[in-house]
């Protein structure tokens, strides 16, 4: 699909909307804009945000998003606890984060307003559904008076719009719906209105509604109507005469789409299994924020993806191990509490040297913690969290789109080295989205590895590839390769049970060496930024965007600072030590209490300084930049 003209409704045959717009005043051009939609969990804010994102992306903006929702399915309506938010940063240039503080807040009720107020910079625009500011709702939100009237909002630009009322009016003709149902289309009304305000076309959303609800369903018609009427409201109402346009960003040439991390992860692994020419068996147990990977893969049956919702996380990983033994790409996924349950079985996978993939979509911990929030606090668990000496490869994508590439990388390493691999995503990567250049499938590498076949010699299940130390992948069902594996220490070569001290020492070292050898087979750590920098800021995983942004900002203000970002955590890229050694200072921003920094200190004896944040939220670029600047003064 080509880029639709900005702010104009294209009129394909199927077009059901009539265009009533007069030519508007030319919009103000802005480099980028941050908008946050907030409302009750039931108000459809995630959907509203996603639609806006999709549209902005289609319009050629670079986008980055941050959905933030409560752990309750539906906390009591109108309360702070029930507020669900979706922040979107869209820009005419390359951006890397969803932005720090919103320029625009769309608040569906008083609670949404109150919860988000502290994040708004002075002068920001606030659109509220003033029809919701009843005494009861104000009290639920904990406002002492009505902020729309008592001066509370003086420092912001407030635009009150009776969204529910307008949406209800807009859909009056759709008799099948109750008044309550008609009111509930107000998020599409709001969406239409914001499309007008930011010169985006409502058409992609209209098409989406048609696809999703059916063109003729009452709900479909109502939503289309609300969307259109919202847009029209902008066109006709004086208040919205001032519009803002964010021009297209210069993205690399190619075909783009918007993608969330969980989707990219699921697609990446489905692709990897295809590239490996093996079925994918996915054993999982639902848990926030990992469940969507299960949901997505369960719809890919025609890709020979077999999903198992197991009875618990242990069964899920064991099913994946059984499948891996059976020659499939065996994958399991979970988050904190569920990953903790998988430790014993991971040990089994590494003892039997099978290419298992374990996806951890990290969330706020410890224990049940903050289920819907993001955190990077499972890194040391990933590396050390099993009994015995049990080294596993550990990878971490650095953003939603990168999850696709790293998924393929995970399968490559797992099958080439016959080792379990941990894939460390997080809640932020999982749910946020960014434009993603759709890869040309024909250019993806083959991951086919040979399955062992019957030979002359007696089969040795623990024979070794001299380079990778991989053992052969001998699939049950193959004549002549009958063999036994298990969790007791194995004699190298035969795979027989062995209690021999020397063999044990050998095998422990071998399993370590196998992981270490991967370092020769992965890209070196790259450094971005001045070559004469004296400070290296090094991070891993989902913080790439924020760290990048913060470093850029600091460089602009004259700091000699470079940025490196790890996607391979175990082993580290071969040049990590020498890279660190080149800098006077090493700063390590992480959404934990300094886990990577511990690793770097112990591996390389560099006085790495941790910049820690554990708030369940991603870094904000400005704050991080300040903290880095501060650290530079200190040392």
């Amino acid at each position, binding site marked *: 699909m080509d880029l639709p003209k900005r702010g104009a409704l294209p009129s394909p045959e199927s077009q059901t909307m009539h265009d009533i717009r007069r030519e508007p005043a030319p919009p103000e051009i802005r480099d980028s804009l941050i908008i946050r939609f907030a409302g009750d969990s039931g108000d459809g804010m995630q959907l509203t945000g996603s639609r806006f994102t999709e549209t902005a992306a289609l319009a050629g903006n670079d986008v980055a998003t941050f959905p933030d929702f409560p752990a309750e399915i539906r906390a009591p309506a109108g309360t702070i606890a029930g507020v669900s938010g979706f922040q979107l940063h869209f820009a005419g240039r390359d951006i890397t984060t969803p932005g720090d503080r919103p320029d625009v807040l769309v608040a569906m009720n008083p609670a949404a307003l109150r919860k988000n107020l502290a994040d708004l910079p002075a002068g920001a625009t606030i659109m509220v559904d003033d029809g919701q500011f009843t005494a009861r709702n104000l009290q639920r939100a904990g406002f002492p008076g009505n902020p729309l009237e008592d001066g509370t909002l003086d420092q912001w630009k407030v635009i009150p719009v009776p969204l529910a009322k307008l949406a209800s009016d807009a859909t009056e003709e759709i008799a099948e719906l109750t008044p309550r149902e008609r009111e509930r289309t107000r998020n599409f009304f709001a969406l239409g209105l914001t499309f007008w305000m930011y010169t985006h076309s409502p058409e992609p959303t209209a098409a989406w509604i048609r696809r999703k609800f059916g063109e003729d369903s009452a709900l479909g018609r109502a939503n289309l109507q609300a969307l259109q009427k919202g847009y029209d409201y902008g066109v006709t109402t004086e208040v919205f005469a001032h519009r803002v346009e964010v021009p297209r960003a210069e993205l690399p040439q190619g*075909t783009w789409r918007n993608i969330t991390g969980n989707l990219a992860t699921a697609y990446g692994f*489905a692709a990897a299994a295809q590239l490996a020419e093996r079925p994918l068996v996915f054993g999982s147990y639902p848990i926030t924020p990992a469940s969507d990977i299960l949901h997505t893969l369960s719809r890919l049956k025609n890709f020979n993806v077999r999903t198992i919702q197991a009875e618990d996380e242990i069964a899920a990983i064991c099913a994946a191990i059984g499948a891996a033994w059976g020659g499939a790409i065996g994958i399991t996924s979970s988050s904190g509490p569920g990953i903790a349950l998988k430790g014993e079985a991971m040990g089994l996978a590494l003892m039997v040297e099978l290419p298992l993939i374990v996806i951890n979509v990290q969330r706020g911990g410890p224990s049940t913690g903050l289920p819907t929030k993001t955190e990077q606090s499972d890194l040391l668990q990933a590396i050390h969290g099993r009994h015995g000496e049990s080294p596993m490869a550990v990878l971490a994508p650095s953003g939603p789109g990168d999850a696709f590439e790293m998924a393929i990388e995970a399968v490559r390493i797992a099958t080439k080295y016959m080792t379990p691999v941990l894939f460390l995503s997080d809640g932020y990567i999982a749910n946020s989205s960014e434009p993603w250049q759709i890869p040309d499938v024909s250019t993806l590498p083959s991951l086919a590895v040979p399955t062992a076949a019957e030979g002359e010699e007696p089969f040795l299940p623990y024979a070794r590839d001299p380079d990778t130390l991989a053992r052969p992948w001998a699939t049950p*069902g193959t004549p002549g390769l009958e063999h036994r594996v298990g969790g007791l220490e194995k004699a190298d070569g035969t795979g027989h049970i062995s209690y021999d001290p020397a063999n044990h020492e050998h095998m422990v070292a071998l399993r370590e060496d196998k992981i270490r050898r991967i370092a020769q087979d992965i890209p070196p750590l790259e450094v971005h930024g001045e070559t004469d920098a004296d400070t290296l800021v090094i991070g891993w995983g989902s913080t790439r965007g924020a760290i990048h942004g913060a470093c850029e900002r600091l460089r602009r203000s004259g700091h000699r600072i470079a940025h490196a970002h790890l996607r391979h955590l175990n082993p580290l890229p071969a040049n990590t030590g020498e890279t660190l050694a080149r800098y006077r200072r090493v700063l390590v921003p992480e959404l934990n209490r300094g886990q990577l920094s511990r690793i770097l200190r112990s591996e390389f004896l560099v006085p790495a300084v941790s910049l820690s944040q554990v708030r369940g939220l991603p870094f904000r670029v400005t704050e991080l930049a300040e903290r880095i600047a501060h650290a530079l003064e200190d040392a």
Partner: protein
Amino acid sequence: MSAATPPALTRKDFQTDQDVRWCPGCGDYSILAAIQKTFPELGIPREKFAIVSGIGCSSRFPYYMNTYGFHTIHGRPFPVATGLKAAQPDLHVWVVTGDGDALSIGGNHLMHTLRRNVDLRILLFNNRIYGLTKGQYSPTSELGKKTRSTPSGSIDPPVHPIRFALGCGATFIARSIDREPKHMVEVFHRAAKHRGSAFVELYQNCNIFNDGAFQLFTEKDTKAHHVLPLAHGEPLVFGREHEYAVVHEGFQLRVVKSADVGDDRIVRHDEHGPLAYLHALTELEDDPDHPVSAIGVLRAVDAPVWDELLHAQVESAIERQGPGDLQALLTGTDTWTV
């Protein structure tokens, strides 16, 4: 997978070069022998067998069978075997487990495997004790049992493997005894043929830590009085001279002297009978004066098989939607070109 008729296999083909490391006199030996007798008779190529076990004395089993074998972790052979079937539908997978492995740590997996009706043969070696860890009570140990971990006697009423399997909706339930080699082989043949989960409880003697646990059912002079062999459609009679018969009373079964009742009153075994009948059958064990254990196939009913459904969904998706087009998937519906 070779299409040609496999060459006839013998017991030897299934033996490995590994020393069998059970205690001398352990009931596990005869079960191993019965399996080594059964497998070559099944007409299945050796490479199509996979044996998956948990941890315990019994779970050493795979090492002694020259098939594919996986000695997994404690309590988890069921999901490993399930995953294996998800990868390779046409393998013939047997699970070997113990009373601790299957009913203590692994109870939940057993439940879900049975209710799903995954195509596995499950041999539960019930010795009513933890063998490998040297003699603690197990979930099938009697109330009051004194063991190393219960010096004053256990306070947990035992779980009854067959009632549990019934409660989980198992489609095939059988029982045999380590001391009855022929009976075991018969039961294994039946289990091999069942489509779905075939659950087999084996009374197994641990002569080191729980010797004689099933004495009543294994000793020459008592077994005929206490073992009720089942055969589908046949009357429930037992005893050396078939002197006992089982009749129906209310919701219960009762053992009577055959001489005292007419043939028509004797209940005939029905493998497809209602759950209530099978429960009543197990309740014969509870008669303190004359406990009777049924052996043979208690239940065998046809039901959809989990892994068949799994693969059918994949195939039907491919049929309906065509094999997955990766490029189309990645591209999705909303794209733009720069």
